[in-house]
């Protein structure tokens, strides 16, 4: 038999790689673009990717019981998947591209030697999907933890780019030390121009998870896509009716098994009847490497049998059990005091929905933290309970809320942070500032300071100065101007805390109380009702 590989599918394979590189490049461009560009409003950012994600669309719809119009784009993905199969996973998904690239690298370096036949079950991702959907029924949004866009954006925002920023800063210092000032200066300008935030609580942990997900490719090719990705699972369920069906020409096939061994996503091309269209991402590898060009994907608009969707044993019993597990898990995510009483440190970005709606909508992608010009938005760890891990909160000690900036509200893919004009944002209160008089310089040391007052951005200022007498250790009395807060004017932006010269534990600090979005976390009682009647 004549041994010749299929030219057509090798070209398609190259095209697929070009497509993946292109979409990854687009993702990266949009990701970097999410910063202050010189314009108050930025239009297209990486949230566009999210809007094409049907899992996020569905979970947000179910969990928050809200229709978010931008998710209409997800229908494109749904239709494409129904007609053409999981081309989204193979040709578009930027996280898929990352895993693909590292699988390739691990194969070339022989870290990864795929077995002739893979026995591990790809069913796990379906169970993960079921648990996420079951949780969404009860308003729990878990999609963000394993959704590929959320995972990738969060990892890039909180660890990869911060790591890069650190590396660049090191390189810059090296250039300066060597006297290559021009190059060093270019780096410093780039860091400022792109707002490469480098300081993140949990940055290390998020980075380790990302590197771990990449390292898993050394064990199984595209491990994430095969066993973990709930979006892939969702698309897998949709791809049963697609028109591109793998066909092996029995006359040409020499039963070498290369196709099954090197299938990226364990779709099992050989034998033909065992091929799982729900797992196939149309990477074209099998067709391209087949030594006799026996494999093709002809148009065949016949629906697959359900059993053949993935050939994974998604028995009714298992589906019911995981659904119940998913539902049962919800209360455990809620065993947290943050539901009962507001957490003082949980200062949400301006425009955030009330906490329960916020948690149901936030997909933990970290875009707001990427866009924040001061690096103040940080991933929450415990303050919002288990379902709030990775959701954004302002940590004024690290960075404050820039007065004329509403970028975080503009880049949020789900509207958990509602889009705000600068004017609207300036009216939102995200918390309240407090003076710790036992640490404040004028109050304790009797020395002048007023740094907080100087930085207070509202006019008239929310920080007023009053003269206070301080008894000094030698018994003398010092009189200084010291800060007091007008809580009606304070927006909670936190610049006072950020700029306070007491660096370790600022003498002025912001807590969440008084935030506009909450009806419970109130401070100033509206004693006079809007009708003017007292006591309303």
């Amino acid at each position, binding site marked *: 038999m004549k041994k010749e590989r299929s030219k057509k599918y090798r070209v398609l394979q190259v095209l697929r790689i070009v497509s993946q590189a292109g979409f990854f490049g687009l993702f990266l461009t949009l990701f970097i673009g999410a910063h202050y560009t*010189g314009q108050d409003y930025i239009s297209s950012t990486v949230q566009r990717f999210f809007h094409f994600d049907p899992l996020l669309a569905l979970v947000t719809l179910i969990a928050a019981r809200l229709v978010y119009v931008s998710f209409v784009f997800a229908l494109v993905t749904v239709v494409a998947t129904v007609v053409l199969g999981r081309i989204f996973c193979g040709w578009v998904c930027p996280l898929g591209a990352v895993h693909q690239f590292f699988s390739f690298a691990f194969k070339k370096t022989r870290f990864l030697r795929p077995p002739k036949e893979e026995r591990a079950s790809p069913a796990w991702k379906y169970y993960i999907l079921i648990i996420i959907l079951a949780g969404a029924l009860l308003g729990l949004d878990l999609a963000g933890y394993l959704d590929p866009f959320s995972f990738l954006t969060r990892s890039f925002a909180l660890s990869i780019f911060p790591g890069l920023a650190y590396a660049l800063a090191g390189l810059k210092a090296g250039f300066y030390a060597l006297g290559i000032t021009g190059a060093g200066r270019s780096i410093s300008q780039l860091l400022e121009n792109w707002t490469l935030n480098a300081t993140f609580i949990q940055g290390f942990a998020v980075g380790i998870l990302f590197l771990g997900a990449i390292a898993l490719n050394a064990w199984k090719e595209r491990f994430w896509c095969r066993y973990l990705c709930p979006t892939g699972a969702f698309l897998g369920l949709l791809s049963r009716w697609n028109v591109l069906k793998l066909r092996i020409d029995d006359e040409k096939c020499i039963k070498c098994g290369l196709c099954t061994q090197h299938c990226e996503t364990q779709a099992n091309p050989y034998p033909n009847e065992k091929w799982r269209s729900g797992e196939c991402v149309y990477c074209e590898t099998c067709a391209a490497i087949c030594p006799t060009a026996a494999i093709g994907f002809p148009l065949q608009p016949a629906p697959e049998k359900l059993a053949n969707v993935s050939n994974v044993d998604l028995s009714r019993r298992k589906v019911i059990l995981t659904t119940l597990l998913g539902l049962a898990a919800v209360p455990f995510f809620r065993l947290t005091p943050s539901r009962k009483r507001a957490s003082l440190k949980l200062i949400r970005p301006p425009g955030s929905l009330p906490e329960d709606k916020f948690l149901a909508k936030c997909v933990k992608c970290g875009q707001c933290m990427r866009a924040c010009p001061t690096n103040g938005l940080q991933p929450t760890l415990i303050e919002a309970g288990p379902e709030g891990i990775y959701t954004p909160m302002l940590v004024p000690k690290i960075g404050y809320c820039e007065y004329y900036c509403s970028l975080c509200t503009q880049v949020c893919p789900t509207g958990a942070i509602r889009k705000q004009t600068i004017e609207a944002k300036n009216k939102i209160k995200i918390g309240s500032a407090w003076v710790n008089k036992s640490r404040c310089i004028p109050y304790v040391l009797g020395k002048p300071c007023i740094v907080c007052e100087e930085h207070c951005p509202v006019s008239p*200022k929310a920080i007023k100065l009053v003269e206070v007498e301080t008894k000094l250790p030698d018994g003398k009395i010092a009189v200084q101007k010291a800060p007091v807060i007008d809580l009606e004017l304070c927006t909670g932006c936190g610049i006072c805390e950020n700029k306070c010269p007491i660096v370790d534990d600022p003498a002025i600090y912001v807590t969440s109380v008084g935030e506009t979005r909450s009806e419970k976390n109130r401070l100033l009682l509206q004693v006079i009702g809007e009708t003017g009647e007292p006591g309303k």
Partner: protein
Amino acid sequence: MKRRNFLRDLAVGGAVLPWGPRVFGGQAAGPAQAPHLAAVEGESPYLITKEAVAALGGMKRFVGRGDKVIIKPNIGWDRTPEMAACTNPEVVKALVELVHDAGAKSVTVIDNTTNQAKRCYVRSGILDAAKAAGASMPYVDETRVKRMALKGEWLKEWDILMDVLEADKIINVPIAKHHSLCRLTMGMKNWLGAIGGARNQLHQKLDQAMVDLTAFFKPALTVLDAYRILVRNGPQGGRVSDTKLVKTVVAGTDPVAVDAMGAAFFDIRPQELLYLKLAQERGLGTFELEKLRVEKRKI
């Protein structure tokens, strides 16, 4: 000569012609006779800046051919020009052009901002204005500083921006604003934006710090932007109603005298400002304006 430059010179020439005899007379008599201070009032921040420098004898008096020049405005805040929190961009633009025309090798506009640098540079309007006039405008790199011996009364040493240290000539271009601690922030306070380090700790003895810094930086020229001044809620204001139109620029070589003259716009007598007193005692200049030749013009 470029057409743009020609048109510009024509405009400036036209503007100064009514005062021609005095301008050219002053120049002919030589810098010895030039006024110590020039205060020019007018509708255009750009033109009054050029006029003020001309009244002092022209930029060539302060900047030589081949000089590396730093122009140091106040760009501390993320505020647009009508808030009067940052130096007027037109004033900066006029100075960049004058410095270029005087034959400088390079002109750099820089300030260590308080809000995000990019926001301050862009929204103050200074980035566009300075770039259009041919200046470079890098963001401050907080790591590119040098610990310098200031030999001050209080500040013995501090981190100074290398960009400023490397310059041959510095032109200080502050804006006149209200400040809760030192009452007014003008030229002497503006040096806090030319340094690195924990600047917020300088507030514990701010007047002294300002004097120590003023003694260290030796600007060739100080141009105080009092076109629109900030009269309350300083030093950043936030409402147009916090500002007042004075439409004046004060230029001079004596940093103490320039600030002393600026105080008048706020109806504050110079001797009420502690830092001016300390600076005069230190011999950095004088706030006794009556002893100086002051040229006042209106265009």
